[in-house]
């Protein structure tokens, strides 16, 4: 079994990368870069890991180097945040289209303007449709655990897609928590060396990223869609295997109190903990029928698991940590609305934005949200179906 040590989110991600026997890390080292690659470069400089560290002049180049290295068959990692992810944008699509199983950690932070370095999910939501498998960590332990699982998911022969592990900027990246880390040997057994199916090899010439005319382009894209849908099963299998190894079983989502909750709040990232903490208190001390639903896997969207998790819910409050200016709902709210239409679900949907630029949901605000939901469950009209949490409650 593992050891419990104190690590910041950034350090925990770097420690996981250290244990995953990564062939190459490429990163832009300056703002908005995180301590993740700082620690990794220390491991490399100290000779603790046999990883090639390629320091480049921009995030666009960082991910481009990763794509090349991944095509050569290496296990590859990079990390970024906010503007850095935005600068990577076009290469994100190349990485998924070329089926490069790169793993990236994103410290979720706000985009300018106005200038702000703090947490929200605008960066990832801006690249939502890049074709990567996308998971969100609730705490430092999960950030560590997801990085190790992410390599296994990305490199699975049925997937072969890049995977991003999201962790809330500052709230997790700079937060020290007690983390149970695995022994190096256990990680090695769980995650054997990458076995590429196709790779750039002068002895066996092959074309990657060829020109595709309209008659072929859509076929590549549909295969990519099939691959990301196959990753659903792989995420669950890997999560179960990881659970056998560590006692911490992962899945596409984690529900609390949903067996009888009339009101549930759906969220991603560190706020999920605050929501569940509040739901637990309201259930245990006041006997209120409330529940909390944390989405671990955002892409592919775990439709079936959500449908069964929400079976008994009368009111669902979906929390988005990014604005979708001018849209009907936020990104997560829109997905849930689509799910309701596609699967004929019948509950009341409220979709509020929260936590922009480091603003947060406190337990007091979470309690007001649950109480608002309970009133709506009894037939009251909500002040609005959309809006900003701090202004709604």
């Amino acid at each position, binding site marked *: 079994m593992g050891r419990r040590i104190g690590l910041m989110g950034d350090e925990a991600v770097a420690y996981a990368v250290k244990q995953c026997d990564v062939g190459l890390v490429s990163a832009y080292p300056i703002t908005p870069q995180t301590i993740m690659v700082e620690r990794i470069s220390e491991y490399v400089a100290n000779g603790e890991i046999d990883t090639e560290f390629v320091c480049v002049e921009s995030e666009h180049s960082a991910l481009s180097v990763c794509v090349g290295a991944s095509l050569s068959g290496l296990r590859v990692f990079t990390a970024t945040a906010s503007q850095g992810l935005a600068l990577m944008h076009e290469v994100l699509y190349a990485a998924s289209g070329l089926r490069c199983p790169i793993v990236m950690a994103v410290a979720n932070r706000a985009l300018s303007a106005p200038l702000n370095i703090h947490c929200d999910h605008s960066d990832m939501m801006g690249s939502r449709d890049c074709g990567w498998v996308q998971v969100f960590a609730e705490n430092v332990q999960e950030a560590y655990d997801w990085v190790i699982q992410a390599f296994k998911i990305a490199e699975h022969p049925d997937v072969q897609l890049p995977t991003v592990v999201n962790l809330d900027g500052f709230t997790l990246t700079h937060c020290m928590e007690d983390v149970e880390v695995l022994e190096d040997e256990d990680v090695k057994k769980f995650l054997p060396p990458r076995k590429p199916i196709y790779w750039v090899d002068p002895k066996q010439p092959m074309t990657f990223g060829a020109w595709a005319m309209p008659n072929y382009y859509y076929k590549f894209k549909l295969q990519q869609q099939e691959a990301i849908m196959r990753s659903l099963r792989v995420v669950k299998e890997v999560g179960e295997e990881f659970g056998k190894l560590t006692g911490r079983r992962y899945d596409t989502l984690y529900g609390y109190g949903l067996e009888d909750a009339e009101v549930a709040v759906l969220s991603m990232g560190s706020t999920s903990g605050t929501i*569940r903490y509040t739901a637990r208190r309201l259930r245990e001390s006041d006997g209120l029928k409330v529940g909390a639903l944390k989405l671990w896997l955002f892409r592919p969207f775990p439709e079936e698991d959500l449908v069964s998790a929400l079976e008994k819910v009368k009111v669902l409050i979906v929390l988005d940590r990014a604005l979708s200016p001018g849209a009907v709902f936020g990104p997560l709210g829109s997905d849930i609305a689509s799910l309701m239409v596609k699967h004929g679900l019948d509950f009341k949907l409220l979709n509020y934005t929260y936590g922009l630029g480091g603003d947060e949901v406190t337990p007091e605000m979470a309690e007001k949200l649950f109480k608002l939901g309970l009133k709506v469950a009894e037939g009251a009209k909500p002040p609005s179906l959309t809006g900003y949490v701090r202004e709604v409650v």
Partner: protein
Amino acid sequence: MMWEIFWLGRAGQGVITASRLLASAALLEGKHVQAFPQFGAERLGAPVKGYTRISETPIEIHSAISKPDAAVIMDVSLLRGLVQSGNLPKAKLTVVNHGGDEELAKAVRRVNPKVWAVNATGISMGIFQRVIVNTPMVGALIKAMPIVSLESIEKAVLNRFPGAIGEKNVEAVRKAYESAEEVVL
């Protein structure tokens, strides 16, 4: 049972280190911990807030602490400003660095219910010849509120600062632990 500590000082004084040292010591005692900063402007001298949570059970909550069990104010000029503006943080226990100004500590006690004070600036100047008050303030806090043992703090300090600088920091913790006193009017 969960303890929530709020730390306030200026960038460069060791607010973040103090919040983590307390968490590390609690972790050595088998507790679950959380230590995190809240940055303002990232400049030396700017006010910095730090938070520590210590719990027997895993910690789920991830938001800043609004009603701390203890508030530790590490910087004398910030403390003076808070007293003058009437903006002292509300906490069950307040631990302050009065920097030799005992009247300032009494002014805090007239507003907050339970106040402990130490001259962390003096201790820090004596040992390090500069104002880095993190380790003395940790020593003063655990004297006023023994959530972790002095031994665990010393162990955490030596893990964080190996060698001679570690020994000096242990001395700073002990001096503050011995000289911290409850403020009575």
